[in-house]
């Protein structure tokens, strides 16, 4: 693969050039929509209606963002989203990590059984309606709890974490056990600090999925009391009334007359996307290892 360029045949060189062009076009196709969104969200709303904004905002204006940050519904969905990410990620990482620790304790007779019980849930799950009925009878519907409680134990992530923990020499845990440490103590004081990389990568995965997911709001929290940011965006996209409400004349000061649905939508989309952009570099450090590990373990 790493032979020098000079050795290439003419056919090989043509191939290389085509390949570079093809992949650059692909890269632009993937990235361009975000540039367009950013340009639109920073443009004057009325001016944006004329179209023709591709890469740069034509008439720079921050009014879409200014308006959004005065909208109480946006602020409340933003708060709920942030709370969901914080509470959901913490509980998920701690409980899935504990589970992974339990299934890696070598002398524990129940470890295989625990593994199987969870692996089954990867392949079989109850239908939409039975799950809804169970959640309903548990009193999870119309609560914030439905966001984090069902997501606490994740079987796939348990497997990632367990295979990482298995690579740690057993003597580390065993010596603590001989010193009389409790299992929970060993998990908190030894397993967690030693396995920081895998805990961090699962934390990133979990927070991204908590930030993005919206179907559970539609299914379990349709009252609108627990709207998250993606749901706010969904309402803006699909519900005409939501946009009308946004343009409530009382809420619009003189300065805010230059708004349009397009720029508002673009601005909200950017708000949902930006946090992912920020954690993206951190994510990349971890997840490639994670997915290839999963591939090896099958």
């Amino acid at each position, binding site marked *: 693969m790493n032979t020098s360029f000079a050795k290439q045949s003419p056919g090989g060189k043509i191939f290389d050039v085509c390949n570079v062009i093809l992949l650059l076009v692909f890269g632009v196709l993937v990235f361009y929509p975000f540039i367009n969104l950013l340009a639109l969200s920073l443009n004057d709303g009325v001016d944006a209606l004329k179209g023709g904004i591709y890469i740069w905002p034509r008439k720079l204006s921050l009014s879409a963002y200014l308006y959004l940050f005065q909208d109480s519904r946006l602020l409340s969905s933003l708060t709920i989203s942030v709370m969901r990410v914080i509470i959901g990620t913490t509980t998920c990482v701690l409980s899935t990590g504990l589970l992974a620790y339990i299934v890696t304790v070598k002398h524990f007779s129940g470890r295989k059984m625990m593994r199987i019980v969870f692996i089954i849930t990867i392949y079989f799950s109850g239908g939409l309606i039975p799950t809804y009925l169970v959640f309903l009878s548990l009193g999870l519907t119309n609560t914030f709890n439905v966001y984090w409680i069902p997501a606490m134990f994740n079987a796939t992530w348990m497997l990632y974490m367990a295979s990482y923990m298995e690579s740690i020499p057993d003597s580390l845990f065993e010596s603590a056990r001989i010193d009389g440490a409790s299992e929970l103590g060993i998990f908190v004081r030894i397993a967690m600090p030693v396995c920081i990389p895998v805990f961090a990568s699962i934390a990133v995965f979990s927070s991204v999925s908590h930030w*993005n997911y919206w179907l559970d709001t539609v299914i379990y929290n349709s009252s609108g009391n627990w709207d998250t940011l993606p749901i706010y965006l969904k309402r803006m996209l699909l519900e005409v009334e939501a946009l009308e409400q946004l343009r409530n004349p009382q809420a619009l000061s003189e300065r805010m007359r230059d708004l349009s649905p397009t720029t508002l939508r673009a601005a909200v989309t950017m708000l949902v996307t930006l946090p992912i952009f920020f954690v993206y570099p951190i994510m990349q450090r971890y997840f490639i290892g994670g997915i290839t590990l999963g591939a090896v373990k099958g």
Partner: protein
Amino acid sequence: MESAMHELDALGTKAKKTKLQLIKRRFYRERQLWFLCIPILFFIFVMQYIPIFGDVIAFMNYIPGQSIWSSEWVGLQHFKTFFESPDFPIIMRNTLAISGLNILFGFPAPIILALLLNELRSKPLRKFVQSTSYLPYFLSWVVVASIAFLLFGNEGVLNEFLQRFGIIKQPISFLGDGGKYYWGILTSLSVWKNVGWNSIIYLSAITSVDPELYDAGKVDGLGRFKSIWHITLPSIRPTIVVLWILSMGNIFSAGLEAPLLIGNAQTRDYSEVIDTYVFKYGLELGNYSFATAIELVKGIIAVSLVFAANRFTKKVMDTSIY
């Protein structure tokens, strides 16, 4: 004779006792771990296993608010209603078309991307393209839908572009218009969202190909294309086969997120799929038993397709997932 029997009996009970004691002692020694496991097991039983058993309401006439135990058993009536309903052929067509298109384009795309990325000589460029490629995977479907509205809407970028170059006079309603463009848009969006992420697994398979094979190929006069075809592709065949078998399980799930966001009343003839139908009849109309029956059909077909695909590849290509 009798005493011998007694002795044997005694030995047996003694052995049993010690075995029981051993188990007891083992439990005692592992009590801390078991105490942690019990709530976890209880949790997973309630959250994941009870809903699986709850699928039996597909064979009942379950009425919301009523107890499952007092519901009337109706056998396969809901399945029959579904198969005989006029919606059935349309839903099946849409589901199969959308998931089929997804496999047709979404399955080879990451393989091709991985092969092309692997051939890139410039490391920084390779890293740049690769890290951009899986960005969309980490975005919410709502964001993807918003992008779709922006690009394909009536005043969207695509319409503007086509009008500016005089290809069309009137804007085309890509997202409406009776759903003519719906399958195409949905397929391109999901390929766009997943291609980069799915290519990672192939790229890591490619890096484990023995470099000596390429050198040997070069000696034999293999060009770039030929060495991809004769060395790289056969080397990653097991990965391709395993992922193909697994993708068979998805042939009846066209997804719920994308159709709920991008489908609308205008596109219904093309966008109504099993998942949206279950959602509509179950959650919106409260036909719990009927919806569960439809979902069960989907699940059973998915499992049997994976088995069939596995069997096929085992026979033809000698690779299988179990």
